[in-house]
């Protein structure tokens, strides 16, 4: 019994320590985002890495998501004679949920892991200390550009995902389900509300922050050689994926329940 309580206490204390460490990390990251010097060149490189090179995976995942939603909605709704709702359902589910979540998860796997591995390796090979000895703030040089790029780029990716996802729904509806193209496009535009786009943007920014934060935090705190870096990479992907799904629910709850 005592052993059990001890273990419980230790886990609790470790958890709280981690939480405190993470809060300090967030504070430091945000502070450094707002104070000079800024490394615009590094920021630009992160835009490319996180944004541009993620376009293929985002396009592929969202187009199939849009396609499958069109199929599934049709098969479900046609028995009620409500086929005309397909365009609206595709629009709402892609813009509000699927595009942001798929973008988030794909980028978490692609970029979160890479960030943790790169920064973690720099940590264990003393490259981060080397930055300090060259009078360069490692936080500003490594963490800030990644977090800023995450917050800025993810919403843009979500917009791209929105368009491609809706296009996927369109393709299936027109070529497989024999909808009238003009009608389909008209009903999509009629149903489109500002909130659909805004939701995606907000979620994108939050997810981008989570991905970069988890990648950088886990990499920055990694210890003990190759194994430590491996752990950091796993943790970065797992925690950011879970947090993305949790925050997706929270944001939807805040925006759509009255």
């Amino acid at each position, binding site marked *: 019994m005592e052993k059990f309580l001890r273990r419980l206490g230790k886990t609790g204390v470790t958890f709280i320590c981690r939480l405190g460490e993470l809060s300090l990390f967030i504070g430091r990251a945000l502070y450094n985002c707002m104070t000079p010097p800024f490394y615009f060149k590094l920021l630009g490189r992160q835009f490319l890495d996180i944004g541009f090179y993620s376009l293929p995976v985002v396009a592929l995942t969202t187009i199939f998501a849009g396609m499958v939603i069109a199929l599934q909605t049709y098969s479900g709704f046609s028995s009620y004679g409500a086929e005309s709702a397909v365009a609206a359902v595709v629009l709402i589910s892609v813009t509000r949920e699927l595009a942001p979540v798929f973008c988030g998860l794909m980028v978490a796997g692609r970029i979160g892991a890479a960030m943790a591995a790169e920064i973690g390796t720099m940590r264990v090979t003393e*490259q981060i*200390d080397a930055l*300090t000895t060259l*009078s360069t703030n490692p936080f500003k040089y490594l963490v800030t550009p990644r977090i800023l790029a995450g917050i800025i780029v993810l919403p843009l990716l979500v917009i791209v995902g929105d368009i491609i996802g809706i296009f996927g729904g369109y393709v299936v509806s027109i070529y497989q389900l024999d909808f009238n193209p003009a009608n389909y496009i008209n009903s999509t535009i009629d149903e489109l509300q500002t909130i659909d786009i805004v939701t995606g943007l907000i979620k994108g920014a939050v997810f981008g922050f989570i991905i970069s934060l988890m990648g950088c935090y886990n990499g920055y705190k990694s210890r003990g050689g190759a194994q430590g870096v491996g752990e950091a990479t796993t943790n970065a992907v797992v925690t950011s994926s879970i947090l993305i799904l949790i925050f997706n629910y929270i944001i939807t709850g805040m925006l759509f329940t009255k």
Partner: protein
Amino acid sequence: MTENKIEIRGLHKAFGKKKVLDGVDIDVKKGESLVVIGGSGTGKSVLIKCIQGILTPDSGSIKIDDVDITQISHKEAEQSYAKMGMLFQGAALFDSLKVWENVAFGLIENQKMPRREAKTEAIRVLRQVGLAPDVADLSPSELSGGMQKRVGLARAIATKPEIIFFDEPTTGLDPIMSDVINDLIIESVKGIGATALTITHDMASARKIADKIAMLYKGKIIWQGTVKEMDKTDNPYVKQFIKGSSQGPISVEV
């Protein structure tokens, strides 16, 4: 104004219950080369990390040019940190940058030197450490261990720091390459008139580059003096260490 470049008094640092530094006192005069010897895990690395502001000591004072950097804010201390350079044990080159960008890093990021000028300067420093100009455009992973050390040394001296730290500069190198690096260290340190603080457990290297040697044991400096004094001392700890014997007062914790 004293002539001490670095003056450390009563430096303490503990990690959890483990006391790593337990009241270290060290003076390094301007232009002098001090070598701190000691076994693995005696806190040598922690000592230089404290001086460089990578770790914050628990108590004690560290004066650089008579300014106690533990008493001022990190921002104010940056001026002192800018005077320092360091050669890391594993060279710690930035593998996302080319060799010349590594060497020119401090020049470009802090001294705001234009890139083209910085490259010329980097190639000049590379030549100084015995590397051909065509190495400049390679990436660090394409270099051998000895070459990486040379690039690390070039990066450390490129900004012409007043204090240079060497963290086990010869570890992992063959004896001949070690000697080459030792020569380069002496040359480059004297060349820019810098003060040097080296930590090592390689006695051959220590003998060669040291003006003064200090031995760190159980978080304290237990002996210091010149190389000649070291050979004559009857301090049992120092004797055991330079002989490299497992018999003596120093017990190895396994």
